[in-house]
């Protein structure tokens, strides 16, 4: 099925996108930057951080305009988007000001807030002592991975990223995707001597059969093998060695081929 082309205007210039795309996707394809904190190209968007707000209006809307999150709003024919004006700036600035009050020690938030002119929060700094902005990327990536080991607990200001009953989550495979995707580096893990520590677990790592470097936790390997239907051995070689092996195999094939070409000529 071919997707319908959608004509829209971003910051006064005409662009084309396709049905089903979001404003964020359309803008990025057009080379227009919109800041985000809770977005990942690999995951479903939820619109939690509100940093990507843009102003939209339409000829048919009788002058109505308003802020929407670019990561969720689908492009539509004739839509007029403004990615950066006083209203948008004000909303983003307030969002960052609020996040700075929540996470005064987060470097990422401090840097972003400073870009919007906020060097010190105008609100009461939180005593939560956290750098977690509750973007939920960790929970979403864990779900996408198929493990669903972590979730959220509580509501409102009490909400937190949580593990069941405060115990090492039984479904955690130790992949550390949550730590890698965390925009504020709040989730920590440690790899040392062939052992990974995360969420209270201690995982034995599988070592590369070629170079001996630790690759991933054994539990994760079993999980990946089961999910993909591939043999566990497939995962026992590290990406570097795998690449080297591929080069070697291809090289041999190429040598062989050139030898054959030479002999036939």
């Amino acid at each position: 099925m071919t997707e319908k082309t959608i004509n829209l205007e971003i910051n006064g210039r005409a662009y084309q996108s396709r049905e089903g795309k979001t404003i964020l996707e359309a803008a990025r394809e057009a080379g227009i930057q919109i800041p985000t904190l809770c977005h990942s190209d690999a995951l479903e968007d939820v619109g939690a951080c509100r940093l990507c707000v843009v102003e939209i209006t339409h000829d048919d809307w009788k002058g109505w305009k308003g802020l929407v999150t670019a990561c969720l709003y689908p492009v539509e024919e004739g839509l007029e988007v403004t990615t950066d004006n006083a209203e948008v700036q004000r909303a983003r600035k307030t969002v960052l000001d609020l996040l700075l009050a929540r996470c005064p020690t987060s470097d990422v938030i401090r840097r972003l807030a400073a870009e919007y002119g906020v060097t010190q929060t105008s609100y009461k700094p939180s005593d939560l002592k956290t750098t977690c902005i509750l973007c939920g990327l960790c929970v979403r990536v864990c779900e996408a991975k198929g493990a669903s080991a972590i979730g959220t607990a509580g509501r409102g200001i009490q909400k937190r990223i949580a593990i069941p009953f405060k115990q090492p989550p039984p479904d955690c495979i130790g992949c550390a995707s949550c730590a890698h995707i965390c925009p504020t580096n709040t989730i920590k893990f440690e790899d040392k001597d062939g052992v990974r520590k995360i969420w209270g677990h201690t995982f034995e790592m599988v070592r590369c059969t070629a170079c001996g470097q630790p690759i991933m936790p054994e539990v994760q390997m079993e999980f990946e093998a089961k999910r993909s239907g591939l043999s566990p051995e497939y995962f026992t070689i590290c990406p570097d060695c795998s690449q080297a092996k591929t080069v070697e195999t291809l090289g041999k094939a190429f040598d062989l081929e050139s030898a054959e070409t030479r002999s036939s000529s």
Partner: protein
Amino acid sequence: MRLSNTKSLNELAKTIRTEHKKVQTAILVCAGTGCLANGSLEVAKSLEKTIKRRKLDVKLHLAVKKTGCHGFCEKGPLVVIQPGEIFYKGVTPADVKEIVERTLLKGEIVERLLYKDPATKQRIEKYSSIPFYSKQQRIALRNIGKIVPGDIEDYIAHDGYQALAKVLDGMAPGDVIESITTSGLRGRGGGGFPTGRKWRTCANAKSNGDGDDTIRYVLCNADEGDPGAFMDRSICEGDPHAVIEGMIIGAYAVGAHEGYIYVRDEYPLAVQHLGLALNQARQRGLLGEDILGSGFSYDIHIARGGGAFVCGESSALMKSVAGEVGEPRAKYVHSVIRGLHDCPTVLNNVETWANVPWILLNGADAFAALGTPKSTGTKAFSLVGKVKNTGLVEVPMGITLREIIYDIGGGIIRDRPFKGVQTGGPSGGCLPESKLDLPVDFDSLTEVGSMMGSGGMIVMDDRTCMVDVARYFLKFLVDESCGKCVPCREGVYQLWQILEDVCHGEGRPGDLEKIEELSKVIVDASLCALGKSAPNPVLSTIKYFREEYEAHISAHKCQAGVCKDLFTFVISEEACTGCGACLRACPVDCITGAKKKLHTIEIDKCTRCGACRNVCRFDAVEVV
């Protein structure tokens, strides 16, 4: 017995009515939550026992009916005797003997149990002559207080399922939608969206894009969560079949075959009565497969909510029904197109559904003739706060706030000055005296910065601090925000923090501007309606009671005598009669004074609890 067609329903209705006619006197004991808490069940038991012992049921054909909420909760337990509409209030088991002896056997009235009109000081005998009831017009609450909620036959005897029969007997789904559209019915849950338009959008919606256009859902929102609101609760408890009948009609109109009632688990009686009613309807062939032999099938399940306020928001409710965390999603694609399990879904609240059978049976025009042109019909309110007649009321749209508060509500307790009325729950606003003559309808309330909401109405007197009220509602929303998006989670929390400071005398110049600035972003950038409307209580109080905020911030004074750090009590030399009431009421013994001499308060010991002020009949305890 399963009813195989509409004819058998009509025959059954006729049989039940003939049977009911044999009862010469019906004693309707209110078994709504308020009266139950006051012991109405003991009253009913005692009545039943006495009647049985004296075999009056055979002799006089008496029947005791435990009904839903009569509405006048302030005066419970309530007992109404029919025919005659004799209205007894505050009945206890000790009164039963007299009621039986005098009223049931001799036809006399027990004077002391009658309601006394505070205005005329007259005792009023008849239910419909009491001002609390006479100005009301009951459509959604039409059967409540008259029928036994757990008895489908009683509902059928009161025209129950007749609207459904009419619909299945010859109306096309499109005609049903047309009828609802013509009636002008708007959603009673708060948004006021035109119900007919919602149904039509759902009926025409393409399903979730997987090619299956056959799955649609029709749901009922019974997650009423506003502090002080109990309209939907009373309907579910007192007339569950009205909701179910409405839903079946809705399902027929949009082509749904499955639905849910999402009801708070904190409403045990509502859950119980809805469950009972669903089973009865199923047994009678009014719900489930092949309803009344029409070929149309629709069934309803109960989904019990865990008490999160946000789960009353449509998308969060649908997630919760599906077993996920009850968090809203952005509704750039409306839930009527992509709702439960991503299928087209109609969600209406309890009161909206309860109106539907009435409209189909009495005609859309009859409904549209009530109320105002843009807000047709009636609206149920729970009237609470500092008003004399606390209770559940249903009035035509367009009635003024003054009529509700003063004529139906009887005015302010102890005739104190009126200060404000909060409508629309935590997302609504507070309106001052100058707005008392405002007609109560969807658009008028929104225009002045409040909203209809689901129908909570909290009346406040001069001893209410509006900053404190705003702080209370914000705290409620801080606790109930789902925490998904930043403006609502962090922003409303910070708003509340500012008000905490203001109420503790730590407000700073510029706080009001800061509140207004932050509120604008919360309104503009929050994900769902909870966040978007969260600043309403504070914005509307700043709008109408700005000087009170300013007094808190610059003069560190709370004139209402609520914010304890910002006032002290003194006893006025002129007003004090030395009666000693305050002295006796003071829990910390900080009041001294001889009889008939001026009393004084030891400021250092005083905890500012206000007990002295509440008991003083001469308004001698003053706030400075």
